[in-house]
């Protein structure tokens, strides 16, 4: 299940600070789009607006024809915050089921993939009864991914979910995420600082300028699916990361 996302002239101002200049932007069904930009450029603000966690100062957002608030009410949005945000008193399995337990009437009657299957898929099948403090940072973030995918949501919003992980774990995580997205065909908006992450995961990368954030480049990533870990060693991958680095540098100077 996936959704088309449309943003029309969406802007956000905090007091006298303009965080986001008007942005018009579409994400097609099943597409993975990464927002890439310097710190403080409004990537997270944009993601929170799409999630319905904040109101835009101007403009409109549509998620498969619904407003973000309606999509939130119907649990059409799976949100993955920067920290895993696991509840320490719940086991891995209970944490993965957390969002299904909340606002139960809107939970899927028969999810495409069960929590148990998802935990197996990300290699946590043997850790169902473990508590978060017994897991590594990467394992905790994998639980966060399962928690979001378990919702069977039309749209996944990910706010730098791998930012706090070491490089090796981070690479593993993007491979896991890519595999899950390929399987489930979910629409994804992904926020990151990592150019390699953006290239590996995305169908498109939206490069944002420094504050007030605006889209300075919308770059298609013409790499074939499924994307396997070996892709990161290819010339195409290297050229795309180099080109995106240049775009990001331009964006920072605008």
């Amino acid at each position: 299940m996936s959704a088309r996302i449309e943003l029309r002239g969406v802007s956000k101002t905090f007091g006298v600070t303009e965080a986001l200049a008007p942005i018009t932007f579409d994400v097609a069904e099943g597409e993975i789009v990464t927002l890439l930009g310097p710190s403080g450029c409004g990537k997270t603000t944009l993601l929170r607006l799409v999630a319905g966690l904040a109101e835009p100062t101007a403009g409109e957002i549509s998620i498969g024809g619904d407003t973000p608030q309606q999509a939130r009410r119907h649990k059409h949005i799976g949100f993955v915050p920067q920290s895993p945000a696991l509840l320490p008193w719940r086991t891995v399995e209970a944490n993965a089921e957390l969002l299904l337990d909340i606002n139960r009437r809107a939970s899927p009657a028969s999810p495409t993939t069960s929590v148990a299957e998802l935990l197996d898929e990300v290699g946590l099948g043997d850790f169902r009864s473990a508590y978060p403090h017994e897991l590594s940072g990467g394992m905790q973030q994998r639980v966060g991914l399962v928690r979001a995918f378990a919702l069977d949501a039309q749209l996944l919003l990910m706010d730098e979910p791998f930012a706090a992980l070491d490089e090796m774990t981070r690479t593993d995580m993007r491979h896991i995420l890519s595999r899950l997205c390929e399987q489930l065909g979910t629409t994804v908006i992904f926020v990151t600082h990592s150019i390699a992450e953006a290239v590996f995961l995305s169908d498109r990368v939206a490069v944002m300028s420094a504050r007030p954030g605006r889209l300075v480049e919308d770059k298609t990533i013409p790499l074939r699916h499924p994307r396997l870990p070996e892709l990161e060693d290819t010339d195409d991958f290297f050229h795309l990361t180099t080109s995106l680095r240049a775009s990001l540098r331009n964006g920072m100077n605008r």
Partner: protein
Amino acid sequence: MSSSARRIVAPVFGIIVFGLCWEVFVRIFDIRRFVLLPPSAIISEFADSPSFYWENALTTGRHMMIGLSIALVLAIGAGAVMASSRFIEEAAQPVLVLILVTPWVAYITSVVLWLDGGDPSIIFMVSFTSFPVFTFGVVGGMKSADPAARELLASVDARPWEVLWRLRLPSALPSIFTTARFAMGLGLAAAYFSEGSALTTAGLGAIGRRAVSFNNAEVLWTTIVSAALLGIAGLTVISIAERYLLKWHASQRS
């Protein structure tokens, strides 16, 4: 010595040494019996009529537990409202501070007159004195709930009661257990003193007050020690409940 054996032997050793010092101190300085009775005399008095002290300790324990339970339930309700509204929190704080700092022994006679003495006035005093302590603990604990987890629950349109039950209340548990120890001391003091003032004949406070009137140092000091043992029993119950309910918390892990 194993750590579990040490946990039992060390406190017992400490109490025995303290008791011996107390006994020697009273005998060497020939302290008047009403000012400080030696432990041997207290043990002898208790051994003469154990059921008398046991039954009155149960009465005091019942007053204390009912009063503290009422205070805790009310504090959770008040704390939930205060934690969700900065205005209400700021409006309620001076009232709670006022209750906390006003010497309750000064107005206990008014409470006894208002509630016609007996159990209601004792339980009211226990609840009233411990309510602010519990409330501060509940508010602090609820406000410490992980902001990322709060946002996560908001992303699926969690109802306020779901946020309270699934996130805020479990987050407040460590703080509630910490404040419960202070509240236990306050509640025990309030129960003991109120029983002595509430025109009742049962409870350690009531027999302690009569002992003062009849200049009976043995009974007075045995009620004091019985009340102290009651407090230790209460703290033990809190520690056991804490170990069971907070097994996920860092404070309970070695």
